[in-house]
């Protein structure tokens, strides 16, 4: 018997969306930025909400720069997908991200501390099945507090 993802013609759209989002999060867990980007459309946009205007841009530019810096500063960074659901035509991933800071990051000097913070990733998938927009939110003051 085959899983739904092996039968793309039979899949409800929401399922292929979920698979794309989970593949993205797994690539993040593997710290493979290129693989993360391979799941996104070339013109895809991103917003790291707590970072305001500095956190908005193209996935292949702003996203790539932030994730590369993050992985460099937190070499043990890891995540747990708590749940993945479709809502209002988008995929909502509730994720816990954790890691230990080894280098300065985004104005946060390293103190060798660790963080564990819940994040919400909202994925919008385009008609070709790639991530077209990604919004990420977390409690930034709590994140900073853990590392200070």
């Amino acid at each position: 018997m085959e899983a739904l993802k092996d039968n793309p013609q039979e899949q409800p759209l929401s399922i292929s969306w979920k698979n794309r989002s989970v593949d993205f999060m797994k690539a993040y867990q593997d710290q493979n930025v290129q693989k993360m980007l391979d799941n996104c459309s070339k013109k895809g946009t991103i917003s790291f909400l707590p970072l305001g205007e500095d956190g908005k841009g193209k996935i292949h530019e702003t996203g790539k720069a932030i994730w590369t810096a993050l992985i460099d500063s937190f070499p043990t960074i890891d995540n747990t997908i708590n749940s993945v659901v479709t809502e209002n035509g988008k995929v909502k991933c509730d994720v816990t991200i954790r890691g230990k800071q080894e280098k300065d990051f985004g104005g946060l000097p390293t103190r060798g501390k660790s963080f564990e913070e819940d994040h919400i990733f909202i994925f919008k998938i385009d008609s070709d099945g790639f991530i077209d927009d990604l919004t990420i939110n977390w409690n930034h003051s709590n994140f900073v507090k853990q590392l200070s």
Partner: protein
Amino acid sequence: MDYRKYRPAKLLEKFVECYFVWEVESDKPLRIESPPNGLCSLVFNFQDTYHVSNHKYEKRKVPNCFMTGQALSNYTLHINGKISVMGIAFKPAAIYNFYKLSMYELTDERICFSTVQSNPDSEVESWTNMAKSHPERIKILETYLLELIKKTGYGDPAIIDAANEIFYTKGKINVTELLDKVPMSRRNFERRFLEEVGVSPKTYAKIRRFGYTCSLMAGNRDINLMDVLYKGGYYDQSHFIKDFKYFSGRTPRKYAKTNVELANYVDRISLVERRLQEGI
């Protein structure tokens, strides 16, 4: 309104919580609420179509034969007319074990069984439709599962046991300690758990604990919330309130006063103890 549960064969106990039959006939619209209960299901409806609403859907038609994964919020069934439903309440890792279906695909969804299944096995749908009574249908389902268990077994035993342990302890378990007992890395365990159960171990424990706590409140308007908090395994009031708001959108006090769960309506919930093979 009649609701009956039937125990599965010993061989299936690790995967099947029970078979159930639910019959309703109502000449006026009826709303039945249900909290997430930590189980998955395969459901058949033989009479009028009904609808479901939850945080995602205002009112959505429920397929006549469908599978569900873990629910992440309370949902409400809207019934008008005659409903005759039967199904299998699966333990958390059972659907993956039988169908090798990534369970996060089913989280918070009701998916047509015909979409999930390849042709030969979907015959079970027509067999149950042809059967004349619910006991006959349950026998068909049990025979189907007993055949299925022989030729499947996709699940990782460590995941099946861990998920069942969370289920049996009603979510009152330290997930970090559970992780220590599992012979695999945390990352691998969590990935497999997401694949085979549909959510993370921590989230599954939360779902199960909430579902159990709701069952303590169902059908009871005059309850001691501190007593429920303690029996439900919550450490403090803030977690108790937070979980109720997350899953039901209401505070525990409001939930206790307004829940319209099945237990408020049924005349009889009976557990049929006799083994199916002994003839029911």
